[in-house]
């Protein structure tokens, strides 16, 4: 059974707080209105009662005075008019007293006072009547003496009348006081209720604020943990429904980040491995370049020996054949290494792209990396052309070797050694062609990997501060490697050029069979140039090795960075 109203949402709590405040205000208003009504109705009824008593008292006083005046007048003039006025005044006074006594709101002491007034008035009336009778009988002095007694009663009566007025005044005062007290009591009640409702509302507000602040603090702490790289799952605890949604979102974000960082770690590991591979191949390449250089030197010395021992052309041709063989092999090796470098650079670029995309989530960086990859792809085109060229060279070298063999056969006894060399050159050309074929296959593999890397890059997404610069550095290193590869290619082309020139030279050897000495000399100088080119290639290879080291360091840095994420 779910409750009708969810108490754990901020909205409900705020509404409850408002409702408490409003309810309190309504109660305050009701009490205030009630107090006003009570005070008003009490005041009205008291006023009415006081007015009635006061009106009847005034009538009584008036009629009593009128009667006493008439009594005195009769004593003075004995007129019938005064007599009638005295009688009428008496009747009116008695009626007034009856009406006064009939009023419901009179206190008992007031009733007693009124009774006493009535008695005194009756006495005064009797005494005046008696005096009037004396007067009627001509006993003036007796009448005046009797009237004096009546006046004493009358003055006592007037004293009681003033007492009654004072009592009414006191009652009015008491009424005012009690009304004031009632108003004060209600006012106190109003204030108490008001303060209580404000306190309740404040308590609810404070509770609501706390139920916001505490979960917010926990959420902030969790976010800071994520920011500092601690991606382990966070227990956020109970919180209002709205914040619980935010908490869930953060929990899911943490999970996504952990997955992503895991991928990045894998990628960086792979990159590091690739960098190591690259480094190893660079060293191998440097060694191979040395081999080329050595081989070309050998070609050179072989040529020189050919010059010196043209007559013993068999051995010299043999030497030339070996040297040409070495040069071909070296060229093939260069091609292979170039392919390896391209592949590794490409792998590296792929890793960098994946890492930067995953960590920085910067589309432009990803695009930049993608451009790099495309450029790499584009750069592999010249390698293909280069391989074609090597194939062509191999083919022509093969033809040249065939021609050389024919020419050696025609040279007879003197050309026997040279024919052996020519055979070796031809085999070298075959081997070069095969190597070119393998390089071609390798390039294709590289291109496939480039495509795969594009997909990997699309997958990688993450936010990691500082990774941008690292990946930029890595990208820079990649560009340097690519430049190095370009230089290697240049150098390789130069080797190829030299090899072509060797062909020319061998062509000229064909002519030099007649003037072998000059040809052999020219051949020797060409071989020296090849050696110089090979040395140049060796220097480039060293530079590439240095770049591989940089790349390795970048990979290590990247690896340490992602290691900072604790997942």
């Amino acid at each position, binding site marked *: 059974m779910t409750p009708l109203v969810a108490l754990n949402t901020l909205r409900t709590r705020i509404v409850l707080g408002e409702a408490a405040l409003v309810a309190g205000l309504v109660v305050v208003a009701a009490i205030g209105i009630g107090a006003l009504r009570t005070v008003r109705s009490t005041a009205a009824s008291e006023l009415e009662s006081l007015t009635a008593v006061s009106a009847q008292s005034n009538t009584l006083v008036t009629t009593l005075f009128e009667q006493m005046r008439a009594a005195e007048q009769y004593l003075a003039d004995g007129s019938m008019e005064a007599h009638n006025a005295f*009688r009428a005044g008496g009747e009116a006074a008695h009626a007034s007293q009856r009406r006064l006594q009939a009023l419901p709101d009179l206190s*008992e002491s007031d*009733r*007693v006072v009124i009774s006493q007034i*009535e008695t005194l008035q009756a006495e005064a*009336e*009797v005494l005046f009547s008696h005096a009037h*009778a004396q007067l009627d*009988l001509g006993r003036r002095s007796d009448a005046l003496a009797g009237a004096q007694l009546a006046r004493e009663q009358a003055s006592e009566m007037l004293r009681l009348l003033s007492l009654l007025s004072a009592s009414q005044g006191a009652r009015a005062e008491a009424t005012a006081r009690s009304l004031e007290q009632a108003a004060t009591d209600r006012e106190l009640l109003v204030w108490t209720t008001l303060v209580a409702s404000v306190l309740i509302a404040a308590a609810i507000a404070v509770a609501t604020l706390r139920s916001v602040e505490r979960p917010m603090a926990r959420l902030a702490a969790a976010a800071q943990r994520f920011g500092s790289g601690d991606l382990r799952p966070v227990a956020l605890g109970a919180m209002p429904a709205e914040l619980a949604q935010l908490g869930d979102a953060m929990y899911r974000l943490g999970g996504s980040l952990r997955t992503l960082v895991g991928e990045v770690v894998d990628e960086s590991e792979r990159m590091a491995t690739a960098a190591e591979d690259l480094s190893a191949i660079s060293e191998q390449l440097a060694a191979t370049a040395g081999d080329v250089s050595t081989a070309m030197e050998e070609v050179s010395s072989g040529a020189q020996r050919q010059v010196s021992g043209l007559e013993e052309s068999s051995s010299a041709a043999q030497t030339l054949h070996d040297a040409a063989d070495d040069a071909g092999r070296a060229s093939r090796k260069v091609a292979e290494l170039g392919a390896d470098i391209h592949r590794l650079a490409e792998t590296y670029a792929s890793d960098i792209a994946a890492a930067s995309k995953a960590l920085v989530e910067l589309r432009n960086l990803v695009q930049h990396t993608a451009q790099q990859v495309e450029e790499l792809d584009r750069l592999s085109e010249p390698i293909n052309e280069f391989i074609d060229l090597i194939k062509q060279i191999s083919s022509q070298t093969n033809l040249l070797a065939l021609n050389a063999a024919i020419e050696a056969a025609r040279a007879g006894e003197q050309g026997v050694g040279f024919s052996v060399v020519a055979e070796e050159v031809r085999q070298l050309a075959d081997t070069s062609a095969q190597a070119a074929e393998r390089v071609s296959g390798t390039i294709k593999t590289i291109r496939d990997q480039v495509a795969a890397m594009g997909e990997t890059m699309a997958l990688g997404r993450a936010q990691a501060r500082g990774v941008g610069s690292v990946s930029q550095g890595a990208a820079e290193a990649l560009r340097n490697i690519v430049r190095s590869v370009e230089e290697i290619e240049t150098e390789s082309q130069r080797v190829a050029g030299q090899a072509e020139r060797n062909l020319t030279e061998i062509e000229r050897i064909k002519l030099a069979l007649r003037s072998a000495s000059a040809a052999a000399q020219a051949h020797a100088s060409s071989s020296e140039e090849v050696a110089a080119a090979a040395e140049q290639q060796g220097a480039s290879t060293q530079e590439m090795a240095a770049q591989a080291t940089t790349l390795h360091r970048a990979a290590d840095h990247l690896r340490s960075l992602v290691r900072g994420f604790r997942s």
Partner: protein
Amino acid sequence: MHLAACAPSDQPIVIGLAGPFSQQTGQSMQLAAQLAVAELNQRGGVSGRPIQLVVRDDSGSVSVAVRVARSFYDSPDVAAVIGHMGSAATLAAARVYNSGDTPIVSISPSASSPDLSQAGPYTFRVCPDDRVHGSQLADWAYRGLQARRVAVLYENDAYGRGLRTAFRSSFTELGGRIVSEDPFSPALPGFEPYLTRIRIRGGADAILIAGALDGGQRMLNTLNSLQFNPTVLGGDGIGGIETANVGAEGVFVSLAYLHEQPGARNEAFRSAYGQMYGEQLPDHRGAGAYDIVYLLGQAIEQVGTDRTRIRDYLAGLGTETEGFEGVTGSIGFDSNGDVVDRNVVIGVVRNRRLVSAERR
């Protein structure tokens, strides 16, 4: 019929009795009430409980009557009050009895002011009011005594003025003339100027004394000393004047009750009263008080001692329930708490006794 088994206890039923018992006029009221209570208790009380009279003397004074009324009102034990005697005291006390949350019944044996009719729902009386007395006296004066000029001396209180007004109204209607109306009170130095003035202004066929016994006696004394012998009439206020040694022979008095009126109940009452108190005769106040004791006894037996239920029972007497047959006659109440269908009798003093004037 004994209802003793139903009584919650032997606690006495308390009834208040208030009147001017230190004065001569109040004596019969107290004696008769005590007689009735003694008779009832001798027969086993009411519902098995004895009746206890709490007697308070109000001196006939308004202020004392109010204090007495307050003390009865504030005692929860007091089930009802018999009293008061005069109109002024009864009216003042009635305001107390009818006030507040626990109003209490008071039944007067003799308060005859017309104002008492409006005193409140808890106020009853078993005597006719002054209008009845006034009209009966006027009728007697005009028809019985053939008087045409009547001088009125009235006590200057509610009773005297009420009786005077009622008499004047009836008498002038019959064709008679009021030659003078003079007030008196205990403070009056003397009746002589009034009576001399009446005399020198042509005299009167009769003099009505509308007041209490004391004033009546003083006036008779003055008449005596002046050798002035008009016919004298009076209301029940001067009841008892027959025993006063003031030459009251021939004075006519209007009475709610005359001891010699017929009826077995009255016979029994007179004999018991005589047995208890010797040669004295009960007056109308005594007869009324005697009836009230028995009436309250009957009411309490029927509805218990609850003040409101007693009032309701009394209010329905003569309409919802059969009227109570008492010494003074059948008692039932109208909506004002006044006894219904009660006429007065005119008595005359013969040999220091009041006898019926009609049977002269």
